[in-house]
């Protein structure tokens, strides 16, 4: 059931109505039933995957929690007779036992995820299943990269004792499968999501209205802008489009992926908000970033937080890294102390790359990001001197230049997504400095890539509206300011947006809009 389908809108409308009619204590079970229905509607063959993740997550966390409770009871009972060393040793014993369970659960689940992703590659699929296991040959199970990371993040948090253990298996099943975020996240933390997910909610007109407004805004970005520009991206990937045409492709793709991903997230967060459930923000207007580190703090935030908490930090403070750091500091004092940062960065970006897919271009994409981040970090003192020398930070135009520079740089790196053959990507990248075909901007080439003058006008108008909205949002929440305005003005604006989505949205045959890009990950 696509977010952009009529069946989904009907499903959401029925759910919202029933949600606020039934008693509050039945709301979370209703959401679990709705999530199961949503998942089954995508295909029953994948139920086994999400069931396995839910069961293994539940069993592991309960096991670890029981051991932690036993530890507390034992230590309280033997507090007086245990020496400090004995207490320390006992705690370490429990912790290392829990670590075994945690690692087993992570290996099982990430093993399944890796198998599913590998089976998207033809020779691997044939080798694994011989073409007979249908559930491995149809495609990636719905939302597996998202619910798997969310569940495993919870397992790690229980191990670290930073999340309360959920002992009700049905409540845990809802945390794993909560349908609005199944498709493309955000990857929520247990402590963030569950207080509002399990709580009863009374009908709140403002929250429902805000949620629906956000959904509508998401549909605007997805249907009016992202889906309309998609056809041009397909064309511009053709071999004949090099040099300036490649630069145009990178800008078009920046618009498409931002509209597609944030549009989907707006629908997700908006629908949850309408039900009184608070999901974490996944984007904070990333194209306004001035450097790559800031960009990654504002783009796909929930995946970045997961990678930082579960890969970057554990690797950088691990015992082998401690030893490596000490050894390298002895030889190179300045460089040595940064060694853990570099090693952990490479590992984190490698994992981020393969999270997107088992394909060379995603690994290269990850390594390019890592390279730029590390080089930027190392050159920071040089930049600081340069800025001071020319008083650049005091000049307003320089901020705009930094934003534009970041936008172009990220566009070039991101385009790697589009070319499974890495050689193709680097050839296009190189063509920027060898092919000066500026004439394609006015000789009619851009009118032959699937977009008409009307399409360009709608995309331009859509992007301009979106840019202004993002600028306004930077200054404070738009919906709150709109709420303070007279109702007639408020509803007129919402009505205009609705009409724009209905009239200018890009709908394919049977009004079935394009799939969300992040569905494939």
């Amino acid at each position, binding site marked *: 059931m696509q977010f952009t389908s009529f069946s989904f809108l009907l499903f959401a409308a029925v759910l919202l109505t029933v949600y606020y009619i039934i008693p509050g204590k039945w709301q979370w079970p209703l959401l679990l039933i709705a999530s199961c229905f949503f998942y089954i509607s995508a295909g029953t063959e994948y139920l086994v995957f999400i069931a396995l993740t839910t069961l293994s997550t539940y069993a592991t966390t309960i096991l670890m929690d029981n051991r932690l409770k036993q530890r507390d009871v034992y230590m309280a009972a033997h507090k007086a007779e245990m020496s400090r060393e004995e207490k320390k040793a006992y705690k370490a014993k429990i912790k290392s036992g829990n670590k075994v369970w945690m690692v087993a659960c992570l290996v099982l689940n990430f093993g399944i995820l890796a198998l599913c992703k590998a089976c998207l590659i033809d020779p691997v699929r044939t080798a694994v299943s011989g073409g007979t296991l249908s559930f491995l040959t149809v495609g990636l199970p719905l939302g597996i990269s998202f619910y798997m990371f969310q569940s495993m993040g919870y397992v790690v948090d229980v191990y670290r004792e930073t999340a309360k253990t959920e002992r009700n298996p049905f409540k845990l099943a809802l945390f794993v499968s909560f349908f609005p975020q199944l498709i493309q996240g955000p990857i929520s933390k247990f402590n963030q999501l569950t207080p509002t997910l399990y709580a009863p909610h009374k009908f709140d007109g403002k929250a429902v209205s805000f949620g629906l407004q956000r959904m509508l805004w998401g549909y605007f970005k997805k249907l009016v802008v992202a889906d309309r520009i998609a056809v041009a991206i397909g064309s511009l990937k053709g071999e004949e489009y090099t040099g300036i045409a490649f630069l145009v492709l990178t800008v078009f793709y920046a618009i498409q992926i931002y509209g597609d991903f944030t549009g989907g997230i707006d629908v997700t967060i908006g629908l949850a908000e309408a039900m009184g459930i608070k999901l974490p923000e996944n984007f904070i207007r990333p194209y306004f970033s001035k450097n790559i*580190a800031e960009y990654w703090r504002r783009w796909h935030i929930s995946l970045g937080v997961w990678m930082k*908490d579960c890969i970057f*930090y*554990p690797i*950088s*403070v691990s015992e082998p890294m401690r030893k490596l750091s000490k050894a390298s500091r002895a030889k190179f004092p300045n460089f040595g*102390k940064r060694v*853990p*940062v570099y090693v952990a960065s490479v590992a984190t970006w490698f994992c981020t790359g393969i999270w997107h897919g088992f394909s060379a271009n995603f690994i290269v994409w990850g390594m390019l990001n890592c390279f730029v981040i590390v080089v930027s970090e190392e050159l920071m003192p040089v930049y600081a001197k340069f800025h001071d020398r020319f008083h650049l930070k005091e000049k307003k135009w320089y901020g705009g230049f930094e934003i534009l520079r970041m936008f172009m740089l990220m566009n070039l790196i991101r385009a790697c997504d589009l070319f499974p053959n890495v050689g193709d990507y680097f050839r296009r990248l190189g063509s920027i400095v060898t092919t000066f075909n500026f004439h394609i901007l006015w000789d009619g080439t851009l009118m032959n890539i699937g977009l008409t003058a009307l399409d360009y006008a709608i995309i331009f108008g859509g992007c301009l509206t979106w840019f202004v909205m993002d600028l306004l949002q930077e200054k404070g929440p738009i919906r709150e300011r709109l709420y303070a305005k007279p109702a007639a003005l408020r509803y007129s604006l919402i009505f205009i947006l609705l009409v724009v989505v209905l009239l200018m949205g890009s709908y394919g045959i049977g009004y079935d809009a394009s799939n969300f890009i992040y569905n494939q990950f």
Partner: protein
Amino acid sequence: MEALLNILSELHPEVDFETCTTLIDDKILDSFDIVTLVAEIDAEYDVAIPAEELVPENFNSAQALYALIEKLLDE
């Protein structure tokens, strides 16, 4: 505490670490700074800060960080 303040000042000389209590919330320290800090603290105090302690509450101020070091040394 003196040694910790020196380590922090070396990372960000422009920040007043004696008074600032929003080092993470205001994005003064990023994840690279935190890992570099952990290595510096390890070298100075010979204490390993585990991954589960790398949370904003422990790094928002020099005082909180010092309290963490003392807690880990005490364990």
